[in-house]
């Protein structure tokens, strides 16, 4: 599948922490997940089943404050939730052969996204991407040919040391 992109190298350099997150598999933007770190086995990053959405793994890039939880569903839609050390989901991203349920991923921010995207339409970027850029919410979507990708984040909630470019 074409949708793996940089996943493998990132996984290789990450220390994987198996977490037990309460609530739905897809925590919503802005919510806080209870992260109970069960295992912190730094040397066994890729041994767990990466495709099993029921066993999310907390990834941490080497030398970075960026932590994300990733799952790939049966339709090969890959979703990431970026979480702060306190468990807040400050960003989400997705990529796959179909659009994920963006309302679920954005949670209470979904209506704001639609309002601002609608208001921006006249000077928007055409059929294949959209962007909402405000002080408290950023959303980018791109649908190119058969590839569906996007990301959303809360600028004021980015942890220290995390930049928008880290959200992939």
């Amino acid at each position, binding site marked *: 599948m*074409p949708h793996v992109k940089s996943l493998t190298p990132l996984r290789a350099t990450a220390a994987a922490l198996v977490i037990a997150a309460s609530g739905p598999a897809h925590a919503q933007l802005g919510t806080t997940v209870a992260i109970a770190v069960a295992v912190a086995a730094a040397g066994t990053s890729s041994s767990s089943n990466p495709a099993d959405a029921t066993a999310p793994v907390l990834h941490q890039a080497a030398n970075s404050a960026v932590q994300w939880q990733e799952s790939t569903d049966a339709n090969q839609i890959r979703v990431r939730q970026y979480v702060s050390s306190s468990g807040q989901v400050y960003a989400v991203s997705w990529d796959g*052969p179909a659009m994920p*349920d963006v309302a679920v991923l954005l949670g209470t921010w979904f209506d704001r996204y639609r309002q601002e995207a609608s208001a921006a339409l006249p000077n928007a970027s055409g059929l*294949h991407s*959209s*962007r909402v850029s405000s002080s408290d919410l950023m959303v980018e979507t791109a*649908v190119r*040919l058969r590839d569906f990708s996007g990301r959303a984040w809360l600028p004021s909630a980015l942890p220290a040391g995390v930049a928008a470019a880290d959200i992939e």
Partner: protein
Amino acid sequence: MRNLTCVLITAIVAVSATMSGCGGGGGGGGSNDSTSAAAPAASSPAAASAPLASSGASAASAPAAVAPAQPASAPANTVAQSTTPNVLPITVAQIATGTRNMLQTSVTICIPGTSTCQTINNIQVDTGSQGLRILASALDPTLVLPSVTASTGSTAASCTVFGSGYTWGSVRTADVHLAGEVAAATSIQVIADPAIPVVPTDCSNSGLPMLTDTALRSNGILGVGPFSADCGSGCATTALPRWYYGCSSGTCVAATMPVAQQVTNPISRFATDNNGLVIDLPAVAATGAASVTGTMTFGIGSQSNNLLGSAQVLPSNSITGFVLTAFQGQTYSTSFIDSGSNGLFFPLSSVPTCGFWFCPTAVQSLAATVAGINGATSSVTFTMGNATSLFASGNYALSNLAGTASNYFDWGLPFFFGRRVFTAIEASATPAGNGPYYAF
């Protein structure tokens, strides 16, 4: 000659007075291979064999300039020759929503096998998607197109997610007439069709609705990208969310859809000139132009007006359709050439932005290299202006409009100005081997 027949039949049938632009031969009886419309074509010796390469005749990795003439099974480089009128006018001009760089055309659709037809204007031309989609509100109520049945036995519907929002509507068949070409009994999407249930939450949760001419900024979309169907085999094997649905008893649920019934790139259904297209638009000055007109010409290497000539062929990934773009030390592997994007979009941190557009203080010249998956490359130089100034100019064709993208390179409509850009359809034979590819 064909118009005469058409008018005659129309007069006899006495359809609604609002019908117009019959556009091409009647008859055809709904068969896939047009028997009447393209009749004058068969003058060339190679015309008899099927123009669309079957799966057995794939490959031809090295583009060969001269195809050996083989009569029986057509090799990938043999293209059936055609004399069917294959040129459709396209324009970029002011539109109701004020959106810049909207490439538009007119299409004529007919009830399959009949001369009951309608011409719809303000259809966006999009090389970044596949299939014809038209707002139900733009169609005459008397143009009742047959519904496609979902594999579950229910009425087929489609949730088509674009980057800017989704279209929801029925899947119906129509004879699609573009210039003199006919895509007979081809699946199209009728957006916001009142005959099917309203959009399911599953679909509307994808983002912004594009169910009106204001939200869509057009009356519809003509997707003429590098694939023959919008979704492809993924939707044939799996009931993917936010793609195809089966509707019965007022409820629509995700369903599988065979590729042949999916909303289809009409070009791939033409009798000839069916392996791709070339878009020609004039160069536009740095400050833009109020409007421009150009052409989309169907087929590649099938007539004297669609020869590749000196264009560099850049094969794209046969599954994703993407090519690569090298720009300022980075290589972006998910690049495409897209008439449906109204600017050039790429990552660049060294230039001031205004919203997601670039707003440099002076026009900047930039360079990139586009590469095919076989390593063939083509250098591209382009310029980028101040988006705020360009929007304020009152011009609607803007060659210097560019904006930010997170991790890809989108060669949008400005790329097409002053170029002759070919898009070859997957698995179809061209003089340079099978598609998919871009060439310019």
